[in-house]
């Protein structure tokens, strides 16, 4: 064996193989520039590709969570507006604000009061308006219906009692009322890492049970804790007063009114509190939405960093590959064909 002997076909074979490699490099670098991708198959960079898929999956979910949040914000905002109408009064229906009612009630503190009858009328209208507001819908869904969004939650029954899903809000079974007010949840994924084992901390409860907002059941004196019920009963009593003098229709009415006024103040302040809480909820959802949008941008950037080329780098590599390939071609045309035979006479 002579390692010094180099044969014509040996040179050709080497040349062919190197030319192919050079061409492959050029083709790969061109593909990178054309597709703007660092890798075009999983095998080119398994670790990066795997990471990119995880990030993309997170991005999908973030988009979902943004959409979920948008929906919930809208639903809660609709609920908030309804509560706003209740608390601050509705100019279109000309119903008073809760503060206005409280003011008027304080003004009618004496044994007489000429405004009682008209206040009574106003209270009755307000009680009806509250129920209508609480039956507000967002899309197909009743906002304040807890987990039974397809059915209107509040209604006055034939006996004038307010019912929530058919259960008397004052005298209905206390356990049932509590369950409907406290134990109904409809959780949604807004990017808190939803885990069914700990939904309270990892998901957002979108259920807004109307009972919780207006109050339910009876207090220690056996009186209703529901604002609309109290308002309606008080309204009826005031409505029965003499329109001119404001005298109560009976002593019982007066005694009852005194009790109810006090209870109504408490109920109204609790409704106002719920309104404030709902405001805080909407604010929280809005800030969470902003956070999700930031996450979305960050994820997009991370995915780009993994998958996308640095154009300067990629184009420089491609030009270098092109240069090498051209040089290899030149060798082929100029040098390879020569041998002693070409110089023989």
């Amino acid at each position, binding site marked *: *064996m*002579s*390692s010094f*002997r*180099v*044969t*014509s*076909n*040996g040179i050709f*074979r*080497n040349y062919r*193989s190197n030319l192919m490699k050079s061409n492959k490099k050029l083709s790969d670098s061109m593909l990178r520039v054309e*597709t703007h*991708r660092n*890798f*075009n*198959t*999983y*095998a*080119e960079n*398994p670790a990066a*590709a*795997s990471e990119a*898929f995880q990030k*993309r*999956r997170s991005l*999908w*979910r973030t*988009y*979902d*969570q943004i*959409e*979920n949040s948008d*929906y*919930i914000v809208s*639903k809660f905002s609709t609920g908030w507006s309804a509560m706003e109408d209740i608390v601050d009064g509705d100019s279109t229906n000309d119903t008073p604000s809760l503060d206005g009612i409280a003011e008027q009630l304080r003004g009618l503190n004496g044994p007489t009061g000429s405004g009682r009858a008209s206040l009574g009328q106003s209270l009755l209208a307000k009680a009806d308006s509250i129920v209508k507001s609480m039956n507000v819908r967002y*899309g197909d*869904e009743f906002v304040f*219906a*807890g*987990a*039974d*969004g*397809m*059915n209107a939650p509040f209604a006055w029954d034939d006996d004038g009692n307010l019912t929530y899903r058919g259960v008397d809000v004052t005298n209905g079974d206390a356990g049932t009322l509590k369950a409907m007010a406290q134990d*109904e949840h*409809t*959780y*949604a*994924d807004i990017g808190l890492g*939803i*885990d*069914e084992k700990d*939904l309270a901390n990892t998901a957002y409860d*979108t259920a807004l049970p109307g009972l919780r907002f207006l109050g339910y059941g009876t207090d220690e004196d056996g009186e209703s804790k529901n604002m609309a019920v109290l308002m309606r009963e008080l309204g009826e009593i005031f409505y029965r007063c003499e329109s001119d003098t404001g005298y109560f229709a009976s002593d019982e009415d007066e005694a009852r009114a005194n009790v109810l006024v006090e209870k109504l103040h408490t109920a109204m302040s609790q409704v106002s509190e719920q309104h404030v809480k709902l405001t805080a909820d909407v604010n929280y959802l809005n800030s969470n939405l902003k956070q999700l949008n930031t996450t979305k941008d960050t994820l997009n950037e991370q995915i780009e960093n993994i*998958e996308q080329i640095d154009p300067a780098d990629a184009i420089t590599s491609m030009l270098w590959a092109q240069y090498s390939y051209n040089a290899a071609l030149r060798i082929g045309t100029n040098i390879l064909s020569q*041998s*002693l*035979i070409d110089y*023989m006479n």
Partner: protein
Amino acid sequence: MGTVSTFGTFTMAKLGIYASQKALNVTGNNIANINTTGYTRQEIDQRALQMGGADRYTSKMDMRIGGGTLVTNVNQIRDQYLDIRYRNQQSNVGATDERLSVLEQLSAYLDEVGSGEDDEGMLEARYNEMVTQVEKLVAQGAGKDEYDTLFRSAANAFLTQLKKTAADLDGLQADQEESFRQDLESVNNLIESIRDMNVDIRKSNVYGSQSLLQQDERNNLIDELSKYMHINVTYGEEDLGDDFKIPKLTITTADEPQRTLVDGVYCAQFSIRQVDSGETDDEGNPIMADDPNFNLDLAELTGPRGQSMVTREETVEGVMGDTGERYASASRDITGSYTGDFKLAEDGNIYQARSLRNSGEPDYTPMTGAALVAYGNESDAQAKAQELNDALTDEEKETTEWRVVPYEDEEGYFEVHKFSTSFDSEDAATAAAANLPTEGIDEETGEKYTIEYEPVEKDDKYQLNEARSYTGAAELSDTELYGSLQSSREMLTKSGVFSNAGDLAADPNASGKHGIPFYRQALDVLANQFAAVMNTANQLSDPDKTIYEYDTDGKIKVGDDGTYVLTDPTKTLWSDPDKTVYEYDQDGNIKTIEATIPNEDGTTGTETLYVLRDPKQTIYEYDDDGNVKTDAAGAYVLKDAKHYGRYPGGPLFSSDGNSNNPDGIDASNICISKEWSNGSLRVMTDDRQAELSTSNNNLVHILNLLTGDQQFYTSPADSGAGDLKTDSADSEPFFTGTFAELFTNHMGSTLANDRHVTAVMLNDYNTTADDLYVDRESVSGVDLNDEAINMMMYQKSYSAACRLMTVYDQLLDKLINGTAV
């Protein structure tokens, strides 16, 4: 003075011209064949001619001059060591090239990088779209038909993509199988062609020809074969007698145990092992089929006319080890030769199956396969029997006993027999009638041999001779070969973590080898588990299916009496005309009560009964009499179809689009169930049977299933009840992660890493193979510079020889015509 004839010098010039001309011919042949594949450069073998013999009269003044030149041979210039290295490398190239080729085809279906809209992948994107619909269903769609439909459409798109991928892999598997068969045929053809070339070359050699071009052609074939498998080529000699030897080529597989593929004019052929398919033909004979693992058999070495070649012969004797005495296990018939069913066991003992004489105690009979050992004296026999009895386990002792009995035909000899109470006399009779095996397989090497038995004469009664003839035939083990054929087979059969115990026994590294079946089976697991967890999540009344019997549609079976059929018949079913569900305790079991039941005879008794849920809380409409309403077709009327929270649920996915069968689901048959697709079944929004229209706790559960981690096992423990994959024998899951991660991250990265590593290896092997090729070329190849120089050299020598002839001609002319005239 040396005797040189007057015209002898002409001959010298003539030889010079001949030699140069031949050399020029060889140069021309080299140049002409410069591009002929496998051509080996040739050169002439030239020797100076010395006129032989002694002169009759010698003088010390005498001197000898050579007689010119002779061309004795044309040689090839080859380096066999380089051939070996090149061919070794070729098997590496073949093995990785084939592997990479299949991996690339797999990637076409499974590699999601850069595919799909916005590079989101295909199956990955369909899965994510499906999860998006579930997210929407959770956040805003509970109780709304349109969201349920959107989820179903997205799920259907996912399943369609999954089935397409599975079908693509099935197609690839079929293509790969065909490709393997073609490769096998190519290998067989190559081996046969090499054998045929050997026959030609041998013939030429016998007649004294060198057959250089045939050798080139044979080398080409061997190079080709070396891609398919790692081979070892040796050049030996064949002695034709009278000290006349010719070269002989032998090719074996390179790794132990080396199988002979070509031995001179004999060659072997590969075939796919035939195994019992489990089916029988019309006559009840088993139908044989190709081994699903595509294991290979090597047939015996045969010559061009089909004559077989015996590679080795062995004689095996049965010898009693501990006493040194020879023994026989044969009984003699009246002619004095031995008959019976002999078996030579691994322990060196000879065993015989036959019906032996009765010991006199009918409860003990000699056992099939019991050793019969003959001894020259009774005490030795007793000692042996005692030793054998001591070696029995307590359990064996209950049915087995070794006893000494006199050897009937030879006085003073005794035999030790194994007796058993559980002896089956019919088996013994069958065994006794059976013939001796004529073929065996060496357990260590898989090599096949034929067996002949030497008749045992009376004087040799303690010896049984077994002659084994090896013909090269063998059953190849799973990992014996290396090269493209083996890679092709591995990609066709290896299933990674899905390898069963048999696969692992055949190849201890099987669990790390990922062929097409791995990816296909992983898809099945994905489909099966996806369907199982979703179906389970969507069924309310009996999530574990422990209480009721189910029919193939996934519905609870109804008995003749109109009640549900319980899986536990020991508990009496309280009459359940409304077919309502039961109250469950915290452990998920039906609550029971002790009820007083009137007996037929008027007395009363106590019975344990299931507690029914409040009938008014059931899912059906009731009439004024408290009976469940039925529609025109007799089916119960649901209370409110829109109240999905009240819905009892059912399988969302089935193994057949025209049914609701949740069993036997895999990636090729998974479908939206009939009920879900026609809208009579919905995704259950609530699993607590609360009558709440937008309650979504079950939807949250489903979302968690789709986005949370699952444990994936390799095989189903239970084929019923939704086929949830769990494997008691293999309690560790092979992967824990989400469904999408199983596909994209686990399967995807396994494939990607395999492909990446294989491509790097192939590149290395190719570079080395190229280097070796060039090295080989540097020895054996034609170089134009070389040949140009030769051409000039031989041209000059030719001219010089011609010139020499002219000079002699002038000399002779002077001598003849110009001298002394």
